[in-house]
């Protein structure tokens, strides 16, 4: 009986050891694609170790493709044109790619593994994207569910960006995640302050990043982010400007307005900001200061459901109705929108009905 037991234990141990050896061999051979070359835009060449997704491989070369989902294939931001070396489309890419994109060899870089030499195309401005180490200089409550976070850059010490762009904040491991995740947030500070980046972060229920920012992040903490990204910025024209935002959508609009004031841009601007009640309004004093600095700027907050104690005398109703009542015509007007997809869809409809051409309505829409 005892010898039978020992034989069984020995057999199981032997099989386990054999399987472990086989796994090591497989990892060293089947999973080892060796050194491969990635050529970007025809003239930047990188020797990299094959086998990992393209997104992460490029990140190791300090080339940061935008991603809001940490490479899980659930945001669609990390699209890259792959001219050569990609192979067949993966099932996890297909929901994100239109027929036109497939014809143009657009791939989801977080899903596509680097297995051989590749030639890819990315916007040149992504070479300006860097990873920054920073310190949390200030954390301030703007409302009951929005925090303003100011980061002081350490390495590199300065950032070169345009008002309206966003960065990706790295959330470290903590209670809700056992690996770092990246999330995208618009920058609220004036880009002329190259040593600081300010974000406005609204708490999302069960949100991994926003829960960390609201419950764990504190002044003096070290933080990492990369950027800048995005093409939401003020166009250089003489048209009148309509801005519409709600909640943390204030961030890029504030950055644009601060920059306009500093540069003395004297275009007519009307900024409609929607909130439910007075406790959801913030930075009103700062907007009123900007009205002094920009004589043609008007801040128009609107509450959809003010409470009695608010003693609210301003505009009341949904922001779309307020915009419609204030706009006579969309002639010679361009619009900048930032908020929830529902708000943006509703505002685009109103603006179009007033005659603002679709191509002059700029927004950063999720989904």
């Amino acid at each position: 009986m005892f010898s039978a037991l020992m034989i069984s234990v020995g057999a199981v141990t032997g099989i386990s050891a054999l399987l472990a050896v086989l796994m090591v061999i497989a990892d060293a051979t089947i999973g080892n694609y060796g050194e491969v070359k990635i050529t970007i835009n025809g003239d930047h060449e990188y020797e990299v170790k094959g086998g990992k997704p393209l997104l992460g491989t490029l990140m190791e070369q300090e080339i940061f493709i935008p991603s809001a989902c940490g490479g899980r294939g659930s945001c669609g931001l990390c699209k890259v044109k792959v001219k050569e070396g990609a192979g067949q489309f993966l099932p996890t890419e297909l929901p994100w790619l239109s027929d036109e994109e497939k014809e143009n060899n657009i791939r989801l870089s977080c899903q596509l593994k680097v297995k051989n030499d590749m030639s890819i195309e990315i916007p040149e401005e992504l070479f300006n994207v860097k990873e920054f180490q920073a310190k949390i200089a200030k954390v301030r409550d703007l409302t009951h569910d929005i925090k303003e976070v100011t980061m002081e850059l350490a390495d590199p010490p300065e950032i070169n960006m345009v008002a309206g762009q966003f960065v990706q904040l790295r959330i470290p491991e903590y209670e809700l995640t056992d690996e770092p995740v990246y999330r995208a947030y618009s920058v609220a500070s004036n880009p002329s302050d190259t040593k600081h980046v300010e974000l406005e972060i609204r708490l999302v229920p069960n949100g991994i990043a926003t829960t960390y920012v609201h419950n764990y992040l504190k002044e003096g903490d070290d933080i990492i982010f990369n950027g800048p990204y995005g093409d939401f910025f003020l166009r250089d024209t003489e048209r009148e400007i309509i801005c519409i935002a709600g909640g943390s959508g204030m961030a890029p609009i504030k950055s644009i307005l601060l920059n306009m004031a500093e540069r003395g841009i004297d275009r007519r601007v009307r900024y409609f900001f929607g909130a439910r009640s007075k406790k959801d309004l913030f930075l009103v004093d700062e907007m009123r200061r900007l009205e002094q600095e920009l004589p043609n700027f008007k801040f128009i907050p609107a509450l959809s459901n003010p409470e009695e104690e608010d003693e609210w005398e301003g505009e009341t109703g949904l922001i779309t109705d307020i915009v419609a009542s204030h706009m006579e015509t969309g002639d010679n007007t361009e619009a900048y929108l930032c908020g929830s997809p529902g708000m943006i869809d509703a505002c685009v409809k109103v603006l179009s009905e007033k005659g603002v051409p679709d191509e002059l309505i700029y927004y950063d829409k999720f989904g």
Partner: protein
Amino acid sequence: MRPGVLTLHGFLGSDKRDLIEILEEDEAEVRRMGTSHRAIADKMAYLRDRGKDGLGEFIDVDPHFEVRVDSVRGGIPSPFGGPGLIPKTNTTVRNTALQREIVYTDINIHLIGEHGFYEGKGSLFRMEPHELVEILEVETEQQQTELPSNR
């Protein structure tokens, strides 16, 4: 279903039961309450659709709900397969009569309505059927047959 494939944490949480057991036990609870997965999902969708009128802020929905609908970037495919991506939309519903609040996502609506799946226990986005029925005041099947629909 497992962590790191479609979402960071997956859909099964720390649940030691297999998927069939999870589905069967939640199905039994829903039947005990006299309602159905479809009725629960329909009420979730109804409040979400009404909440969209708030354009990202809380809005009153009769008889005594406050609802806010917001989104984050991207979408998620269903772990059960099928075409398309489900938006990452969060709906927060406050029942002011009961002083209770619940938050759910569009993928919760899809998983419950199409598959009777409320996610595993310990999952960050697990929906307890009894909480949904109580807070959203989901009608029982008897109530649905007795009363005309007001929607």
